[in-house]
């Protein structure tokens, strides 16, 4: 039996508290790397945040293990943490930077932008 799904924080809608992707943008200046990163200036890594509900709906693309971990936390041992809200898919970014040798390097770094989130 699956019980009623409770909202985590009173007064907040389920949508707001549930695990989801949050846009976030930084500049390489803020990271202190503007001295050697020429492009891009702005970078949007985004991040995942929110509660992992007991009933993991298919949109979250959670592995079965996450469902079991939820049940263990609820039925067997509270000290076992519930699944965490983490990135599911990523996107690369292209960076133009200066190397120690003074060469100029164009490089594609994988997994630099969180594109979607999951509970696991």
């Amino acid at each position, binding site marked *: 039996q699956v019980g009623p799904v409770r909202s985590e924080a009173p007064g907040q809608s389920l949508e707001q508290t549930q695990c989801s992707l949050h846009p976030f943008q930084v500049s390489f200046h803020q990271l202190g790397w503007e001295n*050697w990163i*020429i492009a891009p200036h*702005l970078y949007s890594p985004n991040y995942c945040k929110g509660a992992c509900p007991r009933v993991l709906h298919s949109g979250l693309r959670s592995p079965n293990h996450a469902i079991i971990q939820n049940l263990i936390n609820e039925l067997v041992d509270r000290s076992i943490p519930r699944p965490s809200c983490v990135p599911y898919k990523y996107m690369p970014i292209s960076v133009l930077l200066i*190397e120690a040798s003074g060469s100029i390097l164009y490089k594609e770094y994988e997994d630099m932008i969180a594109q979607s989130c999951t509970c696991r």
Partner: protein
Amino acid sequence: AHAQDAVAPAQVPTLLPLLGALLQEAPRNSPRRQLTRGHPLQYMLELYRQNADQHGRPREKRVFRANTVRLVRPAGRRALPPRGPWYVQTLDFPLQPNRDMDHLVRAAVAYRPRLRLSHSHLSCHVEPWAHKSTILLGGGSPGFALPEAWAEMDLTNYIQQQVQPQKGRRVLHIQVRCQQQERTEIGLGWRQALATDTAFLVLYFNNTFKSVPRMELPELLVGDPEGADLLSLARRVR
């Protein structure tokens, strides 16, 4: 920068692989960015613009197959005495040791085929210095639309067969050979024209960073007994 100070450099690669990789490539003495200006910067900015959008995301249709492109400036240059209408300069390009994860897919010398002087101009071409081998030069395509007034000489085969197999320090020697078109007196202006960034080496790699074998980690930590603990920690985390 402060966060980096708080963590011993040897630990960073373990804790933040990306930071570790970027730190390897960061200039130790963090030169001012304006050190990189002029033709090389314009060339790479044009390459960047064609291959990535304004958010820094690689375009769906990449203009070339490589995911890493390095522009190498000459480490040394020697102008030979003029001979008739010919003005020749030799450039030395040091080649870094190939890291396991860098697979060279294309190498080319980008150069300016036409150099303007005050009352004349030179027509130039490039070739490996003392090139005697039967390896065909040229061919290949940069993939991206070269900036205006630039040309490329593909040296992929030459570097893969002649330079990369060399032991020890590998240096590519290139000759920039320029011929004056008019019969006017040009004085020493040609020296300055050749001394500016007239040619540089562009290396295209496919970098398989993700699949770097773990064995590189011990080298990073081996000198530090505490690091050895960290190594076991790293393993447990994995």
